[in-house]
């Protein structure tokens, strides 16, 4: 379509904003210079004709895979041509090329190469790294099996050492042990790093990583003893060839085990690694990426839903007046603005975790692991908390766009199906919540036995001891001022403390019934998850509030303060049961909270479009007809639909094949 003028509603919205969106964009990017650089890379990609293609919604899965491979090969070449090497800049580039979607080389670039760097010996790096860097070797990371995911110890693939030939014999002994899901495994890779139970000298030594060639270089045919293929269609991830891998007595040389830490000597002697905490570092890093992804995905969905709601007019608010923008309805604001506030909250949490990780990763490589357990526990919970919330939030945004949200042209279905697996991968969310709960209960136990705990759980120190029943906690009086973010942080803190204590006490009660530790844990796990959620919720409110003081521009600080208040108060109104039962807030205060939430909706309303503009998504990146920056929604929906595959012919072939004979017969 030809360039059209900006929709009048959006123009008016933008003119009425009380702050400068660019300033907020700079805060999100981490400085004006980062914004400039991001936009520079954005322009490199979106102005490059090599990266243009037909709308992916009209392509078959096989075509989408093909497009992705084509773009990935170009991407690798161009990154080197442009000399882009900073990890964050690579990440941007990739995200623009693939419009936020996964691609078949993700595992090669994101897991195979880094694992070689961190876990391979210098000799192994000589053999594998450069060929992999030059893509003569394309690798993936094969961990998950059909029968086991998050519970790694349950993996069944075996690697048995044969000292006679100095080889490992790899086997998939059961159907459940077939590797299942690794990205790029189905069709793309010719190598895989395979996680398997190591057997040497008749003993199982646990999980270890092996470099396994799977396809013939040159012909790309599977090697003898290897069965490999694509796992079939999924909810999303159409461009990714998630694969399966079955190995039958497949032999690899001893030198193919990644041996920087653990080793198997030629005679089969096993040498243990120094610390197993090292792998925590990678997990923390990947989980921090998911927190960032939660923020980005929710921000994209909010951008689409809020812009569309400013363009769409429907029904009447005042008799006789023109139809209002649907964004003027309280119910629509109530659906979208708390999500907008959540998106901002998660943006700041994501930045915080990334910075913390960066800060302590220096310590980690120096061998100082002291801060890891807390960060590990925190990222597990926050990964689950943010991905669950964003997952539900994206769906609410889609639903708020009514019927048109259901069309692929809205772009939200794609955001959802791409994002939703993050609730499962890199640690299933419930399991993650329980990991955080374990840390919380441990800290609580320390406090009860008289020790003080430090860091983010230090609020547990404030719990008065020797209480018998949880209700008595209700006696605590927190004076909550509902218009003061700092005071709301205290309220969330009190709620977290109350739920952690309740869960810990219930756990103790189960143990007193002489149940085994595991059984007692299982019978308390619903409480434990609630405690973890409350803890994470507190952390998010706290981090959002802390961010406010860093903001120098008064207008931006004002609007972010309103969002922060909305985030905190909406969270209370959705969890009134906890705050009431714990005696943190009274009935009257809850009524005030509900009232204040509605006032904030009206206060935020004039800035809503500017607040999503600040996320600064390029139209091509957003991939949504409803969320276009210029707001020309209906014209472009029609243009888009005309390109649909069913419209390729004027009269569909089904007419001649089926309809006509039917009409003739009856």
């Amino acid at each position, binding site marked *: 379509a030809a360039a059209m003028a900006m929709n009048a509603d959006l123009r008016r919205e933008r003119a009425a904003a009380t702050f400068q969106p660019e300033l907020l964009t700079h805060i999100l990017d981490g400085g004006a210079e980062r914004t400039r650089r991001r936009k520079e890379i954005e322009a490199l990609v979106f102005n490059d004709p090599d990266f243009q293609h037909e709308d992916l919604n009209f392509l078959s899965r096989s075509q989408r895979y093909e497009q992705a491979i084509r773009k990935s090969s170009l991407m690798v070449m161009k990154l080197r041509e442009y000399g882009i090497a900073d990890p964050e800049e690579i990440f941007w580039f990739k995200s623009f090329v693939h419009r936020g979607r996964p691609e078949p080389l993700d595992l090669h670039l994101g897991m195979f190469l880094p694992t070689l760097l961190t876990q391979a010996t210098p000799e192994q790096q000589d053999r594998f790294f450069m060929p992999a860097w030059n893509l003569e070797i394309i690798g993936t990371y094969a961990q998950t099996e059909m029968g086991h995911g998050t519970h790694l110890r349950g993996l069944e693939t075996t690697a048995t050492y044969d000292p006679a030939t100095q080889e490992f014999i790899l086997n998939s002994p059961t159907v459940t042990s077939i590797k299942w899901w690794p990205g790029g495994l189905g069709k793309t890779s010719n190598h895989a790093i395979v996680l398997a139970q190591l057997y040497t000298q008749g003993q199982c030594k646990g999980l270890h990583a092996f470099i396994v060639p799977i396809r013939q270089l040159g012909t790309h045919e599977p090697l003898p003893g290897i069965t490999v293929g694509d796992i079939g269609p999924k909810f999303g991830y159409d461009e990714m060839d998630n694969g399966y891998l079955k190995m039958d007595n497949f032999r690899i040389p001893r030198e193919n085990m990644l041996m920087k830490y653990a080793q198997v000597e030629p005679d089969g002697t096993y040498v243990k690694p120094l610390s197993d905490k090292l792998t925590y570092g990678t997990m923390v890093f990947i989980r921090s990426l998911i927190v960032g992804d939660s923020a980005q995905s929710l921000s994209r969905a909010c951008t689409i839903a809020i812009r569309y709601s400013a363009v769409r007019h429907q029904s009447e608010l005042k008799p006789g007046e023109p139809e209002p923008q649907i964004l003027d309805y309280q119910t629509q604001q109530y659906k979208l603005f708390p999500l907008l506030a959540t998106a901002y909250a998660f943006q700041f949490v994501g930045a915080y975790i990334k910075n913390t990780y960066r800060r302590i990763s220096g310590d980690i490589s120096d061998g100082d692991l002291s801060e890891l357990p807390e960060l590990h526990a925190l990222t597990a919970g926050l990964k689950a908390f943010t991905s669950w919330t964003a997952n539900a939030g994206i769906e609410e945004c889609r639903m708020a766009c009514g019927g048109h949200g259901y069309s692929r042209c809205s772009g939200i279905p794609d955001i959802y199906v791409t994002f939703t697996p993050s609730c499962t991968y890199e640690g299933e969310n419930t399991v993650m919540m329980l990991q955080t709960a374990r840390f919380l209960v441990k800290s609580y136990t320390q406090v009860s036995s008289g020790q003080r705990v430090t860091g983010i759980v230090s609020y547990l120190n404030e719990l008065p001891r020797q209480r018998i029943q*949880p209700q008595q906690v209700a006696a605590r009086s927190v004076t909550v001022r509902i218009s003061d973010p700092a005071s709301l942080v205290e309220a969330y803190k009190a709620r977290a403390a109350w739920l952690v204590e309740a869960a810990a006490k219930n756990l103790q009660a189960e143990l007193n019934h002489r149940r085994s530790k595991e059984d007692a844990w299982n019978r308390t796990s619903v409480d434990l998850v609630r405690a973890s959620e409350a803890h994470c919720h507190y952390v998010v409110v706290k981090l959002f509030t802390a961010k406010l003081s860093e903001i120098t521009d008064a207008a931006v600080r004002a609007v972010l303060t309103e969002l922060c208040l909305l985030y905190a108060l909406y969270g209370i109104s959705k969890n009134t049961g906890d705050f009431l039962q714990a005696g943190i807030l009274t009935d009257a205060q809850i009524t005030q909270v509900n009232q204040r939430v509605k006032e904030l909706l009206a206060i935020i309303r004039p800035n809503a479009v500017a607040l999503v503009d600040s996320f600064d998504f390029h139209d091509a990146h957003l991939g949504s007809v409803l969320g276009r920056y210029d707001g020309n929604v209906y014209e472009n929906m029609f243009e888009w639909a005309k390109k649909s595959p069913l419209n390729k012919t004027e009269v569909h072939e089904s007419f001649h094949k089926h309809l006509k004979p039917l009409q003739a017969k009856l």
Partner: protein
Amino acid sequence: SVNPDLASERRTASFSVEKLTSRLDGGTEQTRIRRAVVEAIESDPIFSRENQYFQSQNERYEAAVRKAVHLQRKMHEMRWTENGPELKYIYRALSGDVAFLLHRVFMRCISLLGSDKQIAKWIPPASQYQLIGSYAQTELGHGTYLQGLETTAVFDITTQEFILNTPKISAMKWWPGDMGRSATHTVVFAQLYIHGQCYGVHPFILQIRSLQDHSLCPGITAGDIGPKMNFEHVDNGYLMLQNVRVPRENMLNKFCEVQPDGTYIKQGSQKINYFTMTTVRISLISDEVILPLMKACTIAIRYSAVRRQSKLKPGEQEAKILDYQTQQEKLLPQLAAAYAFHFINKYLQELLDRGYREIQTKNFDNLPELHAFSSGFKAMATQYCTSAVEICLRACGGHGYSLLSGLPSLYTKILASCIYEGENTILLLQTARFLIKCFSAASAGQPIPPSVIYLSAVKAGKCPAKNKLDFLNPDIYTEAYQHAAVRLVRSTAAKLQDLIQSGVKKHEAWNQCTVQLAQAAKAHCHYITVKNFVETVEKLDTEAGIQKIMKHLCDLFALHGIFSNAGVFLHDGYISGAQMDMVTASYLDLLAVIRKDAVPLVDAFDFTDKSLNSALGSYDGQVYQRLYEWAQKSPTNTQTNPAYERYLKPLLHNTLSKL
């Protein structure tokens, strides 16, 4: 052979699965008919859905048309009729994966809104498929808010025709099923103009494609609206009209008529136009909402009994994930909800049948209540069941994400139900309007319909429960739900009143209270659903353990609702903090109790493997084998990899190292 982990679940059932099945069907005869229909459909390869996850939009559409055509033959062969008891089971057995569903809405619309003459003219050729109909209401710019539709129908006295037009882009019809590629005719809703005066939205019958070569008629632009989250088999379409003329007789005129001189005559309520929607709204709940949830529960619960992960006790075998409290807490409340909605749907169906009979006699008295009922329950059931299906999907971890699990398709399909036939928030507000009206009427001492009579019964006080077992007493929790509903309706009504008295305009006051109003409507529907579940359980046979297990499910459904909305019940102290702990304790206890019967409870839904179409949910529980075998049939494995020759090979063969 059946996976031993599933077999052991079935051996310990506390009730007769077969008896429960026939109870759900409404009698053993119904079960027999249903099974016969399912058998006939599923044994016919043309109706197979096995490959659907591998098919493109074009292939899905063609298959659906082919099935619809074949179905005519099948019905003839099986001697099934349009009015026979088999009909509802046919569509269920096809899982809706068939074309021309809107053709049926087209016919229903004519039957309801057309005069006898119109029915005689259009229904016989339509039932013979001499024409294929669609139902064009929604436009690009307007959906639920019908008064806002922009398509126009101007009466031209000189030719005795209506001139239909799409005056601007937002007025284009958008979404109607069967319209993109199949339909030859449609009922189109347009603003009627006579002598320059607008008379509101009316239905017109309009031909859009040639009956000879299927080409578009003059003045018509139509096509497919492009890919969606699901419904790939349906050609949802767009339609643009430019000075298309239809004769005066094509306006459906049972309730309103334009006479040759342009006089407009109304007979009965204008609201009657919406009765089609009311009926569609209720009829969709069973097949499009409750059945998908039952299927999702079946898949997720069977899979959770087969999948073993991690250990509950050191040294033991890995535990079934269904044994984890957190997994039970995800799935079992959804199972209870499936039963709760099944029973409320039966109740709604009866109300609707009664309403239909009354309307035939032009008695419209109960229309407002019926409308409020259908709106609120449509909103509640679709919202609740949609999120329940998503919970089932996510409870299956990574494998749930595979299309072969069947869950993504169930989810993307059910979630459309939150939007079509009325956007849920708007529907809840319609119910709220009814509740507020009844509440005011009751306060003024006027009579109100029986379903809302509870609003006038003033009961203060506190929940009398003393220990956790008290919360297994239906009176205790039903009262709590009733109390919460009354409180929310009353406080919202008061708030509205206050605002209006303080000088805020009525419509503005309404908008300021809509969040609360929607909440009040939900509380009302939740209360009615709990109450109906309780009453249904009371009427069940005590034999064969059915009443007992249904009582557990009813308790679970009710307590889950209190547990998840604790604030609503704690707010005015009706339930105390200590009582809320009792609710939680009873609720968690129930999970362990129902856990034992979880597999038999989904077996009772009696879905065949073919209808589930899921690698994870099959009756025999051979999950992994099935997943592996099915994946190998994927085109990505059976066809050569086009990307290899074109892109991968050059990549691997060292074009990069030159850089």
